[in-house]
């Protein structure tokens, strides 16, 4: 196979090129300047903003680069914007957290950028090999980020667990790619989509797709493959948990939308019902187990399993409403979940304490702004109407009903009601419970507050004007 490469290709994948150059600059700055961390936070922020801007200028037009293995513009750039905003918010929320936990090293930002680079490549991939490359670039950066607080036992545990299980899941994915290649004779995703209708129901093709599905379900922490998520999210540094729970999931969902189109999912003999059952199981398990948690970080980990279930509903629907819903949900979820983890990171002290529900008792009197923002994030995660979370759920459930999966939508709505219990429990803790005797100190970080303010603004804006996103995404399908 001969893939013609021209300089134009590097311009066509603009956001990815910007991200890559940024990561190199950050690494060099870290090695050149004595206090590289202070430089790198701004360099990284500038890199994410630049990549986001480059992607934003080019959401309408779409084409391919590198001989049809990478998509440009349109869908790929929308995904790039989601990842770049996740990265930018994480940088703002991390600076103070890194300082107070004593892990303020500049490599952190380089790893964030490399992870986003991998995500962008996953969102843009039109070839299973490129997709795999992106997935691994992202995952390796995540393994290191999870273990970044390296003198902390829980962080090391988190990194090691994620690495071992992630490597195992990668094995499934790679074997699935090999089997799909064996039956279709190509790794090009558009060609696989063309050949899929005649192959659906044949054992080797189905097994291949199922193995790819396992690899992706692991990355989004959907139910039979969710075991790692609570431990990894709890042990990793808090801003990293927020970043992994949003960006990492969004990248895998982009791959879902590109690969698992209706013609690949199939009807009677296809994998669609399998994904539907996984979605239902994730929603039920995530929400029910989240109720029993006493640590908010762990509660958010289980809630992220539940949200993976909600978003999968849109994948199962496999129609325009569902796909738009998935893309909208990814943006909304990125904003609200990074926000929630960001508040956690600010309230947490340098020793990894103040992460439990009781620690938030009476927080509203002490930190009214922070409490208000946390309450808004919780309302949005629960799916209360004026916020973005509601419209995300609305679109994916509407898509499911259009596609004839009414039972799935009913499960989703019922589980949203269950989720309100534990999200609102935190609000009750902050507003209607007396503060405990020992005063807790709440971190004050203007960069963090700025990020949370942006997140809240985005949450309200997307909730009031969901069509700004839907108008853009509906052109992709």
């Amino acid at each position, binding site marked *: 196979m001969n893939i013609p*490469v021209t*300089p134009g290709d590097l311009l066509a994948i603009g956001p990815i090129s910007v991200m890559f150059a940024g990561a190199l600059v950050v*690494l060099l700055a870290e090695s050149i300047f004595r206090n590289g961390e202070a430089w790198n936070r701004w360099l990284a922020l500038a890199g994410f903003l630049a990549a986001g801007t480059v992607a934003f200028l080019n959401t309408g037009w779409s084409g391919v680069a590198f001989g049809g293995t990478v998509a440009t513009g349109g869908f790929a750039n929308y995904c790039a914007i989601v990842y770049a905003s996740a990265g930018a918010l994480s940088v703002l929320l991390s600076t103070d957290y890194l300082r107070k936990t004593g*892990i303020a090293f500049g490599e952190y930002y380089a790893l964030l950028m490399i992870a986003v680079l991998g995500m962008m490549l996953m969102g843009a991939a039109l070839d299973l090999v490129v997709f795999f490359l992106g997935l691994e670039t992202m995952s390796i950066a995540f393994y290191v980020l999870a273990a970044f607080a*390296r003198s*902390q036992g829980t962080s090391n545990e988190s990194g090691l667990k994620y690495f071992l299980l992630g490597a195992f899941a990668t094995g499934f994915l790679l074997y699935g790619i090999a089997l799909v290649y064996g039956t279709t004779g190509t790794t090009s995703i558009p060609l696989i989509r063309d050949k899929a209708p005649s192959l659906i129901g044949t054992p080797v093709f189905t097994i291949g797709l199922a193995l790819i599905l396992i690899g992706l379900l692991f990355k989004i922490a959907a139910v039979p493959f969710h075991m790692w998520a609570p431990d990894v999210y709890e042990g990793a540094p808090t801003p990293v948990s927020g970043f992994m729970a949003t960006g990492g999931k969004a990248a895998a969902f982009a791959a879902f939308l590109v690969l698992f189109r209706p013609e690949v999912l199939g009807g009677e003999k296809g994998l669609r019902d399998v994904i539907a059952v996984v979605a239902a199981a994730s929603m039920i398990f995530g929400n029910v187990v989240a109720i029993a948690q006493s640590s908010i970080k762990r509660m958010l980990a289980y809630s992220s399993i539940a949200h993976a279930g909600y978003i999968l509903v849109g994948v199962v629907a496999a129609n325009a409403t569902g796909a738009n819903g998935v893309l909208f949900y990814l943006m909304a979820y990125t904003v609200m979940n990074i926000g929630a983890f960001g508040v956690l990171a600010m309230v947490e002290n*340098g020793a*990894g304490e103040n992460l439990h529900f009781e620690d938030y008792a009476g927080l509203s009197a002490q*930190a009214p702004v922070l409490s208000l923002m946390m309450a808004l994030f919780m309302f949005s995660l629960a799916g209360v109407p004026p916020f973005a979370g509601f419209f995300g759920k609305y679109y994916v459930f509407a898509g499911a009903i259009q596609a004839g999966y009414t039972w799935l939508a009913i499960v989703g709505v019922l589980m949203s009601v269950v989720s309100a219990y534990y999200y609102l429990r935190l609000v009750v803790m902050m507003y209607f419970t007396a503060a405990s005797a020992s005063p807790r100190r709440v971190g*004050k970080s203007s960069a963090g507050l700025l990020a949370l303010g942006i997140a809240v603004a985005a949450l309200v804006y997307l909730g009031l004007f969901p069509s700004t996103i839907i108008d853009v995404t509906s052109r992709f399908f």
Partner: protein
Amino acid sequence: MLTEFGRVFLFILIGIVFVAIGLVVAWLLRPHRPYPSKRTTYECGETPVGDTRMRFNVRFYVIALIFIVFDVEVVFLFPWALVYLSLGWFAFFEMIAFLTILFAGYAYVWRKGDLEWDRPAPRIPRYERGVGVREARLTEDEIAV
């Protein structure tokens, strides 16, 4: 008729049988007279010392990782050197870009002191648990928002 992979399978099968025949025939024909020094591990004629499973200094791994990177670089450079005349300037700049990336990594490692064998300077993050330490580290910008 055999497919391409069928031939590969046949090749593997023949390889296994070939080795197995050699070993089995040697086992049947050879005299069997073991004595202690014959049964020890062969280490170039030296008397073996200790277990083979020993702990290596972790710095060997850093050096090995850096070596792999430049090893792979050379693997890419050779085919490039053979065809770059026919590929033109674009191939030249592609390789420059590739080398720049590796050079950035090299500069990073060098500057961070990971190539210094005698002076390991680990920067271990401060991380203390306990109320006393925590109180002591509170600064005036850690008060309520």
